[in-house]
């Protein structure tokens, strides 16, 4: 059909408008495809590694090692596979440490990605990211823990996919902590404190009922963690789950904006070509032929947008997968997991939506009689909407009245400008809040609350008096079947200040318990509510009242006086399992684990660069979307108002004045939309955090500060300014003859 030629020529003529909507579509599809494919690859790698390398269903550590015959009896009784695994933490330099395990054959099988498994004494295989960050290579001989060790290969362990030193750690930092495997002989020769854990594997990946208490009757459990509660295993699952909502929400919103823009362009095109359509109908063109012709615009935008988005998205998924691979210690068991559903959804859904909605718009025009289309459109300026009849719209200077009327008459444009600004604001503030929350989390947790330097956990219950340090009891209990850490502390301790908005809650421990923010969010409780704690080992119950919620953002914790905790747990009154202290423990005897606060803070510091980059990335993305949407809209506004603009020019108005009359009209919408969006952004991120808290076990503080509001405002106004200056060029190009031409038409 010869009419097809008009499509390419019109698109060429209005290249900026069509390129803008196509770019929005590309961004939507690219974002969806890249994130989906990267997540699919991550999921596939995780599933394969978990399944084929027999990831544990649980592991435990007890105060006394269980003899082999006891383990065998438990295996038979509970139909599980149990395997003993020894490990030691050794320092590789002042700041970093390596957890060396002996290789296993039944559970948590090590995967060697490069090199070989260590076979001889003095040989080790280490995590590739740890080697990379610390400058180690295969074949290097390194001195660590009093041992000259030769690196024989790179290893991945199924129970250290998220490579954190302590279960309570939030961030993995391969530069300060890594894992490795070595021979049993080498491990025995090391000078450190050897620990033993029992790894369990079951077909169902569930912990058999009664196993936990059965083990506890043989030897006191120091730790029993199921894979469901294991942050090193679970974090990747949470990331996959969290990403799912991002994968759909963000691209869907951009897709919505893009389709709205296409429809607006189509409406404009049909409006401009009313007479042409009427002529073609009068000549005898069938409606379906004209429909096919006008759908051509949507086909071109849709096909170019989706195809480019698919290709770019698939390409981008590779570096994204690699990024995930370094973030999570997962071997590249697959490189590119092709999910046909993602491609089909990424291609079909945008195209179907775009075409079907465009068809509705086209059909509306095609329903009109050819004669009506051939006649000039009836002047609608005489009709006033209820908004225009408002008295304040008809007061003031001509410029004011003209601007307000334009604003009121282009409700759809105003609405889309509102939406575009809202989208950019929410995205921008998400970035700023995340950025700030990391700083606030570190400041609150490690400076305001935790006043100690080290938390030392013993492998058996202690009763010896500690004058200088703060002893405390820590145990796992359940509330409504959710696992919770019970902290029995000295209320007057100087090492833990349970702060809430600047107030210290330690004194309130006499009135009830203090809980952490994640626990409050999971259980949906606050001060004054009651909680019932259950001792996991004997099902003893304890109902307590919540005296306050402290600004502890990590972990589901309940803080009670130590004597009360000991009483509930059945420990002696003066017992404790751990100690907070300012100095590194001199001896590791009887020590099961040491938490070093400075190390955790350092890992936060080292990841702040990545956070800054992602915030910057989000800001650029927000600005890009904002510029595209706002420029498209202001461009259309200039196009629609070109006869008025021309007339103003003819009458002698300066370009600045014309711009003020027509373009800057939307400034109040931009400002209002920005300020309305702030609570939405804050609420949105808070909701996201609350949704994920059960899986992640932490909550980020989501306060919006004055500097965020200011920065956000400046960025949004800059975005608006860029759009205006781009559209002013178009305004300048409106010729003086335009007014006359339109009058003739």
């Amino acid at each position, binding site marked *: 059909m010869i009419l097809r030629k008009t499509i390419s020529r019109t698109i060429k003529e209005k290249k900026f408008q069509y390129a803008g909507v196509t770019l929005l579509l590309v961004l939507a599809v690219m974002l969806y495809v890249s994130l989906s494919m990267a997540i699919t690859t991550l999921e596939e790698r995780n599933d394969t590694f978990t399944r084929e390398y027999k990831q544990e269903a649980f592991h435990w550590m007890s105060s006394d090692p269980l003899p082999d015959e006891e383990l065998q009896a438990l295996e038979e009784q509970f139909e599980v596979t149990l395997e003993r695994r020894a490990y030691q933490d050794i320092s590789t330099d002042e700041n970093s440490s390596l957890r060396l395990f002996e290789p296993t054959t039944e559970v948590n099988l090590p995967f060697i990605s490069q090199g070989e498994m260590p076979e001889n004494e003095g040989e080790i295989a280490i995590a590739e990211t740890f080697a990379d960050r610390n400058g180690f290579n295969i074949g290097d001989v390194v001195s660590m823990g009093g041992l000259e060790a030769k690196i024989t290969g790179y290893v991945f362990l199924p129970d250290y996919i998220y490579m954190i030193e302590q279960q309570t750690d939030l961030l993995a930092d391969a530069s300060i902590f890594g894992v490795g495997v070595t021979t049993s002989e080498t491990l025995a020769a090391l000078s450190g404190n050897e620990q033993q854990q029992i790894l369990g594997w079951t077909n169902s990946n569930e912990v058999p009922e009664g196993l936990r208490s059965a083990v506890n009757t043989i030897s006191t459990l120091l730790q029993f963690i199921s894979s469901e509660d294991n942050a090193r295993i679970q974090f990747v699952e949470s990331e996959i789950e969290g990403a799912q909502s991002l994968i759909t929400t963000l691209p869907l919103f951009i897709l919505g904006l893009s389709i709205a823009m296409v429809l607006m362009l189509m409406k404009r095109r049909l409006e401009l070509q009313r007479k042409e359509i009427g002529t073609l109908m*009068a*000549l*005898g063109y069938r409606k379906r032929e004209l429909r096919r012709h006008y759908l051509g615009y949507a086909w071109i935008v849709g096909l170019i947008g989706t195809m480019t988005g698919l290709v770019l998205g698939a390409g981008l998924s590779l570096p994204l997968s690699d990024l995930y691979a370094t973030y999570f210690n997962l071997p590249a068991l697959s490189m590119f997991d092709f999910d046909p559903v993602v491609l089909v959804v990424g291609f079909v859904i945008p195209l179907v939506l775009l075409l079907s909605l465009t068809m509705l718009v086209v059909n509306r025009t095609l329903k009109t009689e050819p004669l009506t289309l051939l006649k000039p459109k009836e002047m609608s300026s005489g009709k006033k909407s209820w908004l225009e009849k408002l008295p304040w719209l008809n007061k003031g200077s001509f410029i004011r009245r003209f601007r307000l009327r334009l604003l009121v008459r282009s409700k759809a444009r105003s609405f889309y400008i509102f939406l575009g600004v809202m989208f950019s604001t929410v995205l921008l503030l998400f970035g700023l809040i995340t950025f700030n929350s990391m700083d606030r989390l570190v400041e609150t947790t490690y400076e305001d609350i935790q006043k100690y330097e080290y938390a030392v956990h013993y492998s058996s219950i202690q009763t010896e008096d500690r004058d200088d340090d703060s002893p405390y009891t820590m145990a796992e209990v359940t509330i409504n079947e959710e696992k919770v850490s019970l902290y029995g502390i000295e209320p007057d301790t100087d090492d833990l200040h349970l702060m809430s908005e600047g107030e210290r809650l330690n004194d309130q421990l006499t009135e009830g318990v203090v809980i952490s923010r994640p626990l409050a969010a999971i259980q949906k409780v606050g001060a004054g509510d009651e909680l019932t704690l259950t001792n996991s080992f004997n099902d003893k119950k304890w109902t307590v009242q919540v005296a306050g919620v402290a600004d502890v953002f990590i972990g589901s914790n309940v803080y009670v006086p130590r004597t009360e905790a000991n009483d509930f747990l059945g420990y002696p009154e003066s017992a404790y399992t751990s100690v907070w202290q300012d100095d590194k423990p001199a001896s590791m005897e009887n020590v099961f684990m040491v938490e070093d606060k400075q190390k955790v803070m350092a890992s936060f510091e080292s990841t702040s660069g990545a956070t800054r980059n992602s915030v910057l990335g989000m800001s650029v993305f927000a600005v890009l979307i904002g510029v595209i949407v706002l420029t498209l809209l202001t461009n259309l506004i200039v196009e629609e108002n070109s006869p008025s603009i021309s007339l103003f020019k003819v009458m002698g108005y300066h370009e600045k004045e014309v711009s003020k009359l027509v373009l800057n009209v939307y400034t109040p919408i931009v400002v209002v939309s920005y300020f309305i969006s702030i609570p939405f952004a804050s609420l949105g991120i808070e909701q996201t955090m609350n949704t994920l808290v059960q899986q992640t076990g932490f909550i980020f503080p989501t306060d919006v500060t004055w500097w965020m509001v200011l920065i956000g405002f400046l960025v949004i106004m800059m975005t608006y300014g860029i759009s205006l200056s781009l559209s002013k060029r178009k305004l300048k190009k409106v010729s003086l003859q335009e007014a006359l031409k339109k009058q003739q038409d």
Partner: protein
Amino acid sequence: MTIVVERVNKVYQSGEVDIHALREASLNVPDNKIVTILGPSGSGKSTLLNVIGGIDRFDGGSVRVAGQSLENLKDGQLTEFRRTYAGFIFQQYNLIPTLTVEENVEVGKELSQNPLDMKDTLEKVGMWDKKDKFPYQLSGGEQQRVAIARALIKNPTFLLCDEPTGALDEETGKNILRLLKYVNETYGTTVLIITHNQGIGDMAHKVIRMSSGEIVEEYENENPIEPEKVTWA
């Protein structure tokens, strides 16, 4: 007789007022002739042309064109009718601005089972040399020539011309009239011209005069004059 109009009425509603655009209008258009419908603005001449061309409905009476009764045709059938038999020429040309002269004419050619030759048609209207020009590069008269070529290439049974010279100066207007006469004589196409220019009636084989929706006068012109002799009003 290709076009027979019998007692046709057409009422428009404008707010609460009924406007009788056509009142009991009856008319016979002889085959292969030029017929001019004269009348002032609002006399109903455009409505009559639109009814005959199948782009407007009527409220009573009958219209038979090329053997088809238009009153019973559905939208799709009317489209097929226009596609097969009618050629429209408008006062404002209504060319597609993003298509060249040749492409604009091709828009009409695509609709026909039995189209005329492109080069021949464009040569006949004197636009072959400018076939690659876009509408904005042409004068008003040239644009109307292209519009005539677009209507003509379909090889229609009749041409319906709504004020074809209304936007043109005398010289250009007469050139267009000459072209219409040439088309009538060369292809045997029935040409209906509506105009408020009384002088154009002198070149037609039949003249119809309208006023307030009624046909007030109808006569055969035994000696149609040459277009160049038309008195321009």
